[in-house]
């Protein structure tokens, strides 16, 4: 079932429930083997987008291709054969064992040699020793892992993970992260919805930020560069006597301000050019320099900047 072209593509995709817009005008293209993060606040339409691409819900606008198949009601079975979705809640049968849960789904996917496939899926999530435990007796973290094993049974070409670490403690989250990273390296296309930004930053090749409409899309570094000016953070042993007189005349420095910790944040066009010039100026001024380093903007800064913009626009 190999195919050429992107693993997922959407063009103007949207979904309304009556008057309520779940998401609108969503367009993107995801390459095969890419780990794609889909970020957004609660109620942004992330889960509805996943359900739409997974043929559980019909779009009200736009078009999409999923694992090489056009998203239409007639293609629902074919698309579901090629993909897997791990929903936010594991949805396991608590009275059945891990192996019995997986057996049922292996049969529903009509896989060849279900026992071997189940064994492989359990090994992938490190759960072979819990195969005969009833799912109802497992911790939340283990249930998430069973759900991930279930999602791997059909060797999906595209794997949708909907908030896979929601409600998990840090250790369980880290285990799930390692599993996702492993899957990413094995070439599975992963569509990860989350509102945990460190998760996206750590795992994803590219991210998109959705807040009903798509606010931005790109590699985390690209988004940072796009949204924020490059900067340097200067720390000195004692506060500078006349920082304006020191930084103002330097051509490499576009702007500056003091941060809450007593450091100086300098806006620069090219840190590689600016850093030596600033160092020389500081030394010449007799300042005791502790550090000069590039300011790091996190994906969280990008996210908050965009979401705050939305909040401002809506409150006007």
């Amino acid at each position, binding site marked *: 079932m190999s195919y050429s072209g992107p693993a997922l593509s959407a063009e103007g995709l949207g979904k309304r429930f009556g008057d309520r817009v779940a998401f609108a005008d969503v367009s993107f293209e995801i390459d095969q083997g890419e780990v794609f993060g889909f970020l957004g606040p609660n109620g942004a339409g992330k889960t509805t987008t996943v359900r739409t691409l997974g043929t559980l*819900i019909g779009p009200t606008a736009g078009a999409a291709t999923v694992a090489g198949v056009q998203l239409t009601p007639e293609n629902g079975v074919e698309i579901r054969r090629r993909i897997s979705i791990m929903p936010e809640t594991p949805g396991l049968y608590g009275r059945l064992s891990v192996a019995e849960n997986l057996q049922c789904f292996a049969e529903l996917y009509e896989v060849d040699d279900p026992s071997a496939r189940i064994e492989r899926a359990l090994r992938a999530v490190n759960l072979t020793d819990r195969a005969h435990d009833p799912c109802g007796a497992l911790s939340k973290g283990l249930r998430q892992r069973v759900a991930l094993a279930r999602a791997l049974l059909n060797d999906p070409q595209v794997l949708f993970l909907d908030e896979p670490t929601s409600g998990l403690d840090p250790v369980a989250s880290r285990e799930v992260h390692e599993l996702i990273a492993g899957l990413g390296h094995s070439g599975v296309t992963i569509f990860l919805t989350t509102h945990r930004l460190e998760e996206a930053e750590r795992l994803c090749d590219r991210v998109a930020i959705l807040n009903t409409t798509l606010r931005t899309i790109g590699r985390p570094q690209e988004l940072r560069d796009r949204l924020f000016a490059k900067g340097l953070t200067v720390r000195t042993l004692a506060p500078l006597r006349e920082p304006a007189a020191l930084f103002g005349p330097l051509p490499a420095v576009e702007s500056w301000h003091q941060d809450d910790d007593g450091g100086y944040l300098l806006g620069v066009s090219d840190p590689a050019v600016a850093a030596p010039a600033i160092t020389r100026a500081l030394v010449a001024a007799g300042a005791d320099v502790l550090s000069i380093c590039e300011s790091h903007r996190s994906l969280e800064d990008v996210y908050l900047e965009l979401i705050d913009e939305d909040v401002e626009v809506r409150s006007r």
Partner: protein
Amino acid sequence: MTLSRRRIAAIVRKELLVYRRSLSIVVTMAVIPIIFIVQPLVSVFATPSGSATVLRHHHELLYMLAIPALVPALLTSYAIVGERQQGTLEPLLITPIRREELLLGKALAVLGPTIAVAYVVFGIFIAVVALFGAPGVPSALIRPADVVVQVIFTPLIASAAIWIAIAISTRASDVRVAQQLSVLASLPAVAVSTLIAVGVIHATLNLAFALGVALLVANRLGWRLVSALFQRERLIAGIR
């Protein structure tokens, strides 16, 4: 449209496993038949051999057709709304399973045990009457025509009750509501079989044939109708 036997069998197997491990389901399957076997037994044992001819005017055996009407109503009402409340419906619908396959699997999983329970209870009743009934009572009560009707109508009535209960379960938003409505919906079948059993409705071959054909058609249409009612989007997104 080609249906996958393997997917249907997977649903049946899963349902039967869940039934086996759920005490409340086992108790439900056991209690209702017991209730419906007590009244005919009391009636039979209260009949002295001299009054056995009275039984010839009744169809006491058909009273037990209430079992295939009531047992599946309680079990099947959980089928869809229960999965939805438990959060297991979405993972099922994510697989390539068609709604027709899912519903047929759910129906067959209830139909098998229901028929088995109904036949076993019927067999026990016949055996008890034959062994312990007053002289003349077994021959007056156990008539071949009634036995044939019981055997043929048990699966037909059970199937109809199942499709009604699945339809209710598909539309209901709460398991308890679905159970109450399903039991209510099975009462007409119970009423008709009781009225035939006590002789208010006169049992004839034509009536049996007409009811049989009606149930066959209803069951065939029931599957189609319930499949049409089953909308993934409404069930997943929770819209009305």
